[in-house]
């Protein structure tokens, strides 16, 4: 046998099998695992983003609404108190 033949045989000796279902399954499982993990990470980021957006909107709304209630409420309350005091004085003056 020539050295060239020996080289060809030696090179071909350690080839993987032509069909290897176990390897194929391992690749698909690893790929699916990666995709699943990526989907989880994306969904966590998406949920965190939505939560942050909702929190920001709620904070904005709370601030806007409570700011409105605070100023207008204070003015309204002050106006009512002033009106009541004025009417009481007016009533007291009339009575006097």
């Amino acid at each position: 046998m020539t050295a060239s033949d020996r080289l060809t045989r030696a090179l071909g000796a350690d080839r993987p099998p032509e069909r290897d279902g176990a390897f194929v399954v391992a690749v698909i499982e690893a790929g699916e695992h990666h995709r699943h993990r990526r989907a989880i990470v994306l969904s966590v980021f998406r949920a965190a983003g939505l939560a942050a957006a909702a929190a920001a909107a709620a904070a904005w709304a709370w601030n806007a609404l409570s700011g409105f209630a605070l100023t207008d409420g204070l003015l309204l309350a002050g106006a009512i108190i002033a009106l009541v005091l004025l009417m009481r004085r007016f009533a007291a003056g009339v009575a006097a």
Partner: protein
Amino acid sequence: MTRNEEARLIAAARRGDSRAFAGLVAAHQQAVRGFLRRYTGHWADADDIAQEAFVTAWRKLDRFEGRAGFRSWVCGVGYRIARDARRTHQRDGARDAAWSTEREAAGEAAASIEDRLALAAAMATLPEPQRAAVALCLGEGFSHPEAADILGLPLGTVKSHVTRGRERLLRALDETP
């Protein structure tokens, strides 16, 4: 696998069809693993890298332009992973032994142990790109242009690597009784 069939499976795999991708892996695993086994010199590491290469290829399938065949593309992905990661020293003896037992049980007509050892030793002494070129062209039957595409080298360089590498391997076998 014909070019049309491969294109159909790639298109389906791009749409997320894992069965289609399994078909591609089944068709090309032997060439990719065979190349990486020759290139790294370690079967267990080579199989791990091959698996990583296929998973990476699946993730990045949108980037596959179809200029070269799918097999060449995955070999290129595997080559870069093997070269960059330098994981060739982390040998998993248990799995190697299991694979050898499997081979012996299958009754493959193997070359002599002496020739295989001499070849492995000689392959390990080849410079890095020469070893990859020899593993692709002599080990797995890739054409010179395919190997040039995979390795990112000029065609003439690949031809020269293969010729010189072959001479060195033949010399090593000649010195083996």
